[in-house]
């Protein structure tokens, strides 16, 4: 083919593809690069092309393809409105019963009638889930369901939408009595909005406000109207050297503040439980038996088995303070649980 014709074919194909892929290109242009927001000329051009393409519906085939592939679509309008409706109803109800005691009342579990415990979140929650499952089985007071999704958080619902998954899939079908939820490490990134056409840079006041809204929305969507569900939101552990994660304690601060406003939510502070006595990161720590154990995996983010066990026994202790676990004969194993002086921080400090 002559070079001029090749140019026409390639140029024409690129222009057609540019209009059809306009929304995806706009999302990519707004995606964080190297931890910084990239609101540059690229984004302006991509947004302009996306607006034009959306107006003329050039993006229709690509949207349908994305829907068929289950990508970038997030929840459908109906699903989103269902979640929003649930949250709104909860908010209205919370307003209506503002004077009432919203502290959840859970029955005392027995071996014959155990409570349903759901544990989920990101890959760190998977470590915790395994240990909680072992304790649940030992106590016979809980049936444990694990539901962890690698690389997820609250920043990127286009990748995995936790609030929708919890409200649509977990609560209606499983009706757990206790939810143990844990996210954070994967939220060390900018929050894209409007399909990536704009967004908030990590750690900025706007980012904090948006993240707070998402945390609050998730908590509200999980409140039981019968006041018989407890949410334990486990704070993200302190990342160690080389982990490359930022704003982790800002996330904990936001979660702890929002949890404090809601009696059905209990924030569990993992920093106090998994850090050295002076508050610094520690990959190895002594447990209650005085022996030192490897608490963290090599990436200094995930929990090693001993770290997961230690956190799980702390969660068990928190559960014991909220629910009558007198039917249980299980006592924390000193080789797996934290010494008495390793406790949660009284409060999570505000950033800055």
């Amino acid at each position, binding site marked *: *083919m*002559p*070079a*001029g*014709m*090749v*140019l*026409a*074919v*390639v*140029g*024409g*194909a*690129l222009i*057609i*593809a*540019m209009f*059809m*892929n306009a929304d*995806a*290109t706009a*999302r*990519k242009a707004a*995606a964080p*690069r*190297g931890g*910084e927001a*990239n609101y*540059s000329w*690229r984004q302006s051009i991509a947004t302009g092309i996306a607006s034009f393409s959306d107006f003329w519906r050039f993006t229709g*085939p*690509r949207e349908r*393809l*994305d829907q068929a*592939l289950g*990508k*970038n679509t997030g929840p459908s309008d109906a699903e989103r409105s269902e979640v929003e409706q649930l949250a709104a109803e909860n908010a209205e109800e919370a307003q209506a019963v503002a004077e009432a005691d919203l502290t959840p009342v859970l029955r005392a579990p027995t071996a014959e009638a155990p409570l349903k415990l759901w544990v989920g979140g990101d*890959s760190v929650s*998977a*470590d915790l889930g*395994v240990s909680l499952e072992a304790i649940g089985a030992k106590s016979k007071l809980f049936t444990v369901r694990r539901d*962890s*999704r*690698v*690389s997820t958080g609250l920043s990127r619902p*286009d990748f995995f939408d936790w609030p929708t998954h919890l409200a649509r899939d977990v609560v209606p079908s499983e009706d757990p009595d206790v939810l143990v939820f844990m996210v954070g490490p994967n939220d060390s990134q900018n929050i894209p909005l409007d399909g*990536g056409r704009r967004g908030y840079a990590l750690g900025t006041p706007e980012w904090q406000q948006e993240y707070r809204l998402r945390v609050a929305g998730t908590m509200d969507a999980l409140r039981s109207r019968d006041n018989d569900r407890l949410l334990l939101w486990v704070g993200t552990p302190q990342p160690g050297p080389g982990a490359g994660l930022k704003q982790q304690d800002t996330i904990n601060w936001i979660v702890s503040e929002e949890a404090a406003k809601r009696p059905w939510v209990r924030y569990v502070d993992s920093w106090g439980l998994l850090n050295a006595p002076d508050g610094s990161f520690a990959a190895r720590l002594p447990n209650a038996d005085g022996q030192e154990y490897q608490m963290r*995996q*090599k*990436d200094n983010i*995930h929990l090693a*088995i001993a770290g*997961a066990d230690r956190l799980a026994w702390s969660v068990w202790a928190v559960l014991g303070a909220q629910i009558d676990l007198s039917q249980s004969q299980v006592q924390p194993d000193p080789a797996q649980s934290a010494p008495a002086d390793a406790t949660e921080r009284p409060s999570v400090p505000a950033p800055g």
Partner: protein
Amino acid sequence: MLFPTTEFAVFFLVVFTGSWLLRPHATAWRWGMLAASLFFYTNPLSPGHQDWKFALVLTGSAVGNWALAQAVWSSLGEGRARTVRSTWLVRFGVAANLGVLGYFKYTNFFVSFWENRLEDLGISVSHTTLNVVLPIAISFFTFQALSYVLDVGRGELAPVKLLDFAVYLTFFPHLVAGPIVRVGEFEPQINQRADPRFVESAEAFQLIFRGLFKKVVVSSYLATAVVDPVFANPDLYGRGALAVAMYAYAIQIYADFSGYTDMAIGLALLLGIRFPQNFDAPYRALSLQDFWRRWHMTLSRWLRDYLYIPLGGSRGTRGATFRNLFLTMLLGGLWHGANWTFVIWGALHGGFLIAERVVKERWARREPLGLPPLLVKVLQWWLTFNMVSLAWVFFRAPDFDVAWTFLTRLVVGGDVNQVLTHSMLGLVAVIALAVASQFVPPRVPARVTAVFATTPPAFQMACLAMGMVIVDALGPEGIAPFIYFQF
């Protein structure tokens, strides 16, 4: 600049137009191509663009090696025979090139290694980490420059003009990750003016889309779904997930690297330059030797011509041949990076190749077992594929501990904490399809290309546009850098 990006598409359209317009003007074309390649290398419009000083390393390599080759050529004797002076000049060239490569690539590695050894002996040393930043593509352009000096030193190649050599060394389609082209293959093509009426576009489009699909869809999917999470924490996964991750990485690195190569060859073809083939269905190999004839073929022939044969090749005793083979693979491993895992990977392949020769020699002396030839081939393929996949574990693991954990858990198993979020069946299907694709006869894509070439331009345009939409939709948001960029 990465190939599968919008900015590269715009860049290439401009370069393509300029290239064919300037083709009748040889010098202007060369200057234009040099400028385009340096723009591609430094990418000054990108927020995270590479330091312009690295472009000085690249141009310095071009000027230095060209000057050295001139000196070597003028010192050759009658009938291009080597002289003492030319031999020493070539040795100096090799040492200088490897010195620069070694400085950028291995300084941190060796400093930290010796500090650790001294600390093991109780000798406290100050931490003198130099944080030397590795210029992108230095391994590739150093090897290409070395091949030029060595070819001239052997009298096999007459020196070329500085501008031609600079265009050759910096030519953007092969600059960052090969194929490792030689001056003798490149220079005649830029001197012989390509005919703008006959651009081999159908073959180029096929190569570019094949590469895009391999990189954006296959490689990215396997990396996200299984390879990255499992290699990050192998002690969390069971045998099944580890086995899938091992095979998935074998496919990922092939899809990533050969995908890049396909795109590079296709792009060069659109500019009227034909590169040598770099991959020939390596996972259909029936032996390790066969594998290395099919995998990264331009590096394999470089190592053969400039390392294995000068070491003595297979001309000496059996022991010397094995030593040469092992050393070549060991150094080939070290070329990939300053990490013991690459050294182990190279040593494993060296060991495998020696073992394969020994076994083949012994089997040749024995009576045939009487197994059906097809079964023998299947067993040979299965063994080769598994040995290659097993060695890749060291190539992918960030350090020896992770590789060891991976392999021990693969063999003895262990507690399973983590489950893969993607369907195991889907992953196995992708791996199986990728392996099966290796057995598609070359005449099939050649036939498709030939038919495509006869279709009207409007149809080709529509196909290309739909191809870009589908690849973009199937791929992740954002493209990870190519694995071989780090080398």
